[in-house]
């Protein structure tokens, strides 16, 4: 499909409308919702979103439109991240700081969900009670029922917020464990799993 942007250096009415909606939206807006709002087909919205994205990029804007798990949203451009990160409204409020142990625990949960704490501990080889509590309190994981086995242990799953935080649209977008293992160098030193509450110096 020939995009409207390539024909002219201005945005179409639809793209402008999308830009305005994303500007006022506080949560991601799905393609279907935009299509319903603008009374156009979802494929048109997708094409216009790409136009808008390229337009902002090409003209060096301080904002960008990006796709996240819940739909599309407006964000500050990557190039101005340092400045925006120091701004009073965003400094120390938006970014979740995760320890190495927390990210490793998240990885185990993400690739095995739904999973019990005992199973996570079995894989990691260390106790994960406090890490799991921290991840629950940050809504990175959620309780997804109980396993029908001895003791009926709780099952955990990753959340939308997890996808948002790591900028992936779905779990299936993550590389498989086999792919990750193949990418690793053969002489990779074998390290023990990060212990609980060992925070990344970064």
């Amino acid at each position, binding site marked *: 499909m020939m995009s409207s942007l390539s024909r002219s250096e201005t945005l179409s009415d639809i793209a402008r409308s999308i830009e305005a909606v994303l500007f006022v939206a506080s949560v991601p807006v799905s393609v279907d919702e935009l299509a319903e709002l603008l009374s156009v087909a979802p494929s048109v919205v997708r094409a216009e979103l790409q136009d808008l994205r390229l337009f902002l990029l090409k003209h060096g804007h301080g904002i960008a439109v990006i796709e996240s798990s819940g739909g599309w949203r407006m964000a500050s451009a990557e190039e101005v991240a340092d400045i925006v990160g120091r701004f009073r409204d965003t400094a120390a*409020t938006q970014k979740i700081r995760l320890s190495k142990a927390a990210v490793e625990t998240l990885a185990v949960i993400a690739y095995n969900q739904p999973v019990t704490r005992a199973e996570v501990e079995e894989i990691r080889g260390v*106790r994960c009670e406090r890490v799991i509590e921290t991840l629950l309190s940050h809504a990175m994981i959620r309780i997804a*029922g109980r396993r029908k086995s001895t003791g009926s242990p709780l099952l955990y799953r990753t959340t939308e917020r997890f996808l948002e935080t790591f900028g992936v649209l779905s779990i299936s977008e993550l590389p498989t*464990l086999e792919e*990750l293992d193949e990418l690793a160098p053969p002489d990779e030193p*074998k390290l023990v799993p990060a212990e609980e509450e060992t925070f990344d110096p970064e």
Partner: protein
Amino acid sequence: MEEHRGELAEFRAEIDGFSGPFDLLCWLVESRELEAASISVGQVVRIYGAYLANTNKVSVSVVSDFLLMAASLVLNKIRALFPGRETLDSGDDTDSESGEDVLERLSRYRPYRFAARALTALKEKRDGFFFRRVSDEEEREPSLDLGDLYALCRLWWNLRESKRRSAASSSATYLLYEEDEWSGVPSSLPEEEQIERKISEILSELTAGRTLRLSILLRSNRAMSNFVVTLLAILEMSRMGRIRITQEALFDDVVIIPL
């Protein structure tokens, strides 16, 4: 070793070093002659408990021995069923596994470490973007204590929100304060009112002085809620002396006779 006594010829076996068959069983389990996991502790305790109760001469000492042996048997069974339990409890992050086990575990864990690295890289990239800050109310997540209750609530809120949105888009004159969100959703009635309605309904059926059958009353609506309300209504009518309820045989139809 054995002893015959009286006409009932009570059989009693005693083995040197053991105070009874239960003690012998415990010893066999502890010495690994018997697999604890294969023993039904509940059944053994029930049989031996019944035997002790039948003897009619159980002393406190015998009961305490019995409890001690039962507890020992339970403990042995737990150990047999959870062989790794001691290792897990013995230390926080240290374990006493053999070198091979550790290597195997590390090898199994390897891809997860790479996955964690990949996630960290993704997060670093994502951290380069900043979004419009949502209000504190929106940001605050409810605590997750029970199963998937929060997800269920969120589904309900989303459903209501989408209904509100579709109502807003279909009507240009949609008013913000218009309370039409519940249109189509049946309003709940207090139980008393439902029963009163049902009583009036049944009474109108009984006006001709004819008898009614419960199956006929339930014919038009076989929902469980209707069944409960109808049953409560006829019980209430019976209590009030308005009707008499009879049933010829078990599981037979219930006949309602006006008084």
